[in-house]
């Protein structure tokens, strides 16, 4: 197991290194002054120029420059944003929680609705139920997210006026950031408007979360269904049924845990698509997360923000997909066996 973990760790480091190398090369190709692209400082004073040259070892060879770049970026020095003059790292810390919150709620929504529906689809003997569930998921899978987001906000926001369609909360509520997750922070705050602020935050997250949840939801339904169908044919299920166990008990205790293993694996594969969807959703619903921040950085030619955004988003994706793979291996008895066989 240790060897396996070390190999995964190695994979993580190697991929990250390649990523940073790509960023390093791209940075020197940006159509602006190299020092500006590295630090975001517009017109540096002579002392700053000397400092930058020393920090990034600009007067040395490429390899040395790359190590310096690596050192700076890994120690959290992402430069300052050219438009706000704030350190990019601080801005990143401000926007990341909002993205995690949205992604988390969307993922929970997708799993909570997707798994039961997938099970239902696999168990149902009724052709109409089966087909309609499959039809719905296929439709959901093929709807472009930007269209869905706009349509939902047009209907539920503008036409019906039921739900707010942009931002995280009505800005009149002042919420002290404690965890950075607004849903938790509203509950933690001691203001007299605590509950209504929480309600408002919940109302604000509904539409973006639903929009973002549609894609993973459809995938979860389909994978759960396929997995359940094959597992329900297994002999141990039949044996359990023959022993007279209730169907619900069979499904929940014996079939579902095994059916969820492929779901987990697919969630890892979906991460990339999911995060790019999240960016689109953030822009549509003006959600103050890392995606909206990165996109506005691109519009404003804020090169340090672009680097910082790409670096963090990519690192998170790499880390999470490797984490999911490790979890998958740890849970899945079959791959555990394979692992021991090969090591």
């Amino acid at each position: 197991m240790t060897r396996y973990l070390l190999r995964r760790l190695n994979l993580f480091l190697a991929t990250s290194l390649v990523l940073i190398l790509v960023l390093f090369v791209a940075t020197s190709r940006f159509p602006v002054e190299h020092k500006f692209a590295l630090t975001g400082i517009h017109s540096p004073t002579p002392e700053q120029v000397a400092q930058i040259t020393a920090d990034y070892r600009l007067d040395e060879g490429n390899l040395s420059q790359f190590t310096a770049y690596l050192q700076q970026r890994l120690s959290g020095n992402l430069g300052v944003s050219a438009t706000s003059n704030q350190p990019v790292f601080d801005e990143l810390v401000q926007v990341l929680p909002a993205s995690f919150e949205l992604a988390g709620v969307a993922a929970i929504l997708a799993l909570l609705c997707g798994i039961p529906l997938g099970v239902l689809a696999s168990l149902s003997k009724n052709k109409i139920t089966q087909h309609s569930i499959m039809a719905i998921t296929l439709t959901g899978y093929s709807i472009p997210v930007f269209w869905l987001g706009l349509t939902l906000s047009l209907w539920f926001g503008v036409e019906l006026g039921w739900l707010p369609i942009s931002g995280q909360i009505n800005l009149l509520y002042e919420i002290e950031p404690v965890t950075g997750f607004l849903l938790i922070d509203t509950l933690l705050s001691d203001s007299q408007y605590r509950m209504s602020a929480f309600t408002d935050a919940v109302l604000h997250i509904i539409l973006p979360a639903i929009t973002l949840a549609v894609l993973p939801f459809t995938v979860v339904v389909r994978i759960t269904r396929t997995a359940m169908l094959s597992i329900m044919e297994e002999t141990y299920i039949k044996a359990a049924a023959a022993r007279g166990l209730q169907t619900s008990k069979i499904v929940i205790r014996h079939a579902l845990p095994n059916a969820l293993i492929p779901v987990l694996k697919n969630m890892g594969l979906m991460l990339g698509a999911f995060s790019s969807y999240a960016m689109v959703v953030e822009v549509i619903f003006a959600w103050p997360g890392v995606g909206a921040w990165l996109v506005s950085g691109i519009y404003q030619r804020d090169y340090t923000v672009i680097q910082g955004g790409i670096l963090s988003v990519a690192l998170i994706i790499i880390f999470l997909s490797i984490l999911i793979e490790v979890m998958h291996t740890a849970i899945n008895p079959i791959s555990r066996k394979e692992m021991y066989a090969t090591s």
Partner: protein
Amino acid sequence: MKVLQKRLPLGLALCISTLQLLGCDQQKLPSGIVYCSEGNPESFNPQLVTSGTTVDATSQQIYDGLVNYNAASGVVEPALATRWNISDDGLTYTFDLRTNVNFHHSDNFTPSRQFNADDVLFSFNRIIDEGHPYHFVSKTGYPFFQSIGFSQLIDDIEKVSDHQVAFHLSRPDASFLANLATGFAVILSAEYAQQLSQQDQQDELDRLAIGTGPFKLVQYVKNDFIRYHRNEHYWQAQPDAERLVFDITPKSTSRLAKLITSDCNVSALPKAGEIPVILDKEALEVDSLPGFNVAFWAFNTERIPFNDVRVRRALAHAVDRENILRAVYQKTAVAATGMLPPPSWAYNANDSMIDYNPQKAKDLLAQAGITELSIDIWAMPVARIYNPNAHKTAELIQADLANINVKANIVSYDWSVFNQKLSSRSYDSVLIGWNADNSDPDNFFTPILSCKSVEYNSNRSRWCDSQFDALLQQAKSITDKPQRTALYQQAELYLAEQVPVLPFAHATRLVFKQKKVNNSKLTPFGGISFNHSSQKPANMSTQP
């Protein structure tokens, strides 16, 4: 299996009903106003900028000036100065200052004294005196003051007593009081500056602003919001709204959507095409005010071929400005015959001196010996008071120019980049405009068309003409209105001959707002004031 199938719908129903409960819950909101603004302010000190976005977010909310404009009557009225005296030769202005005025208390600053003459001296000396410790704290200079030649105008500012200051001018200037009444001439706290110097944090003066205005700055998150609280020590009647939030929303459609879903109460700079939507909704209304502004197309006269007046005239004759008014402004603007808008007292309702005549344009180009011409038109990426949609305007001009065989490329960047690039002077022509800061007609000429303004990059045509400058100077040195009117008309004529800029519209100022918000006050010279605004009690339900 049956059990499971039965339980599922039940669970779903439970889920939905919880959500509905949450939704039906009576919403309790803190008292306050949310204003959807169009962009990030560049600074929190309007002395340093000319952009309307910054003035909106600062001048009327955080600060006060010595004198103020009464928007209704158009006269200068007392603010932090209670009275003023002008000496007979017009060279000395003596202001009596208001007593019992408090500066904001903030987390990092607690004023120990009230407003006095030192603050006035500090605020203006910072601008005019290059030896002042705070003069070069501003990286962007003081564009408005530099463009009107403020430091040359003021010989000396004298502290007569703690509550009296005298401005000694080097020459009589009829626009001096009007310039003091602009949103740029705000009063800062000298004590705060002193404290920051001791802490070696001079930059904070323009970022964590301290003023005497109705609201104090609490928090600013770029691209997201600006938060203000009511100034509990305000020298006038306290503002009704406890909180004021500027929700920064660059897209006009998003601002409209937020207004409809009640995420904001007042929304800035709408597009004309959105008015029917507002008229449809019962809870919303349109606020408008004849604009003190002008939208124009400026030619960079430092570049070939725009240094040739025949080329400029040709391009001007080629543009169908009626068409722009129809398509871009949709009846929310009046056609511009010159720089001055109809509400100005020096305005004269004469016909435009440049007519739409493509044939004449072709002839002029031929005279100039130009056969093939390709130009760039820079279009602002954001809505401005004077032009809600510069990109569309550019497209119309592009089509018009195609008729006279001139090829036009439309160039656009994000607003902050756009501004930086404009200062680098590398453009051919740009669609931009000017929103007046005060009612003096001079404001439409000196800050944007004088030689001085070329130096400070507020003259977008980069056109410097000594004859024109002399004319402006002459008009400023007298106070007789009919005489001044005649001189400004002369200036308009001269501009129509030289066409460094082609004015096309004076836009009406519009905001969309919820009907339950009362007393948000548009000011004609840019800026919006929420001093007396509040939301009516909640029984005016927010139901759409």
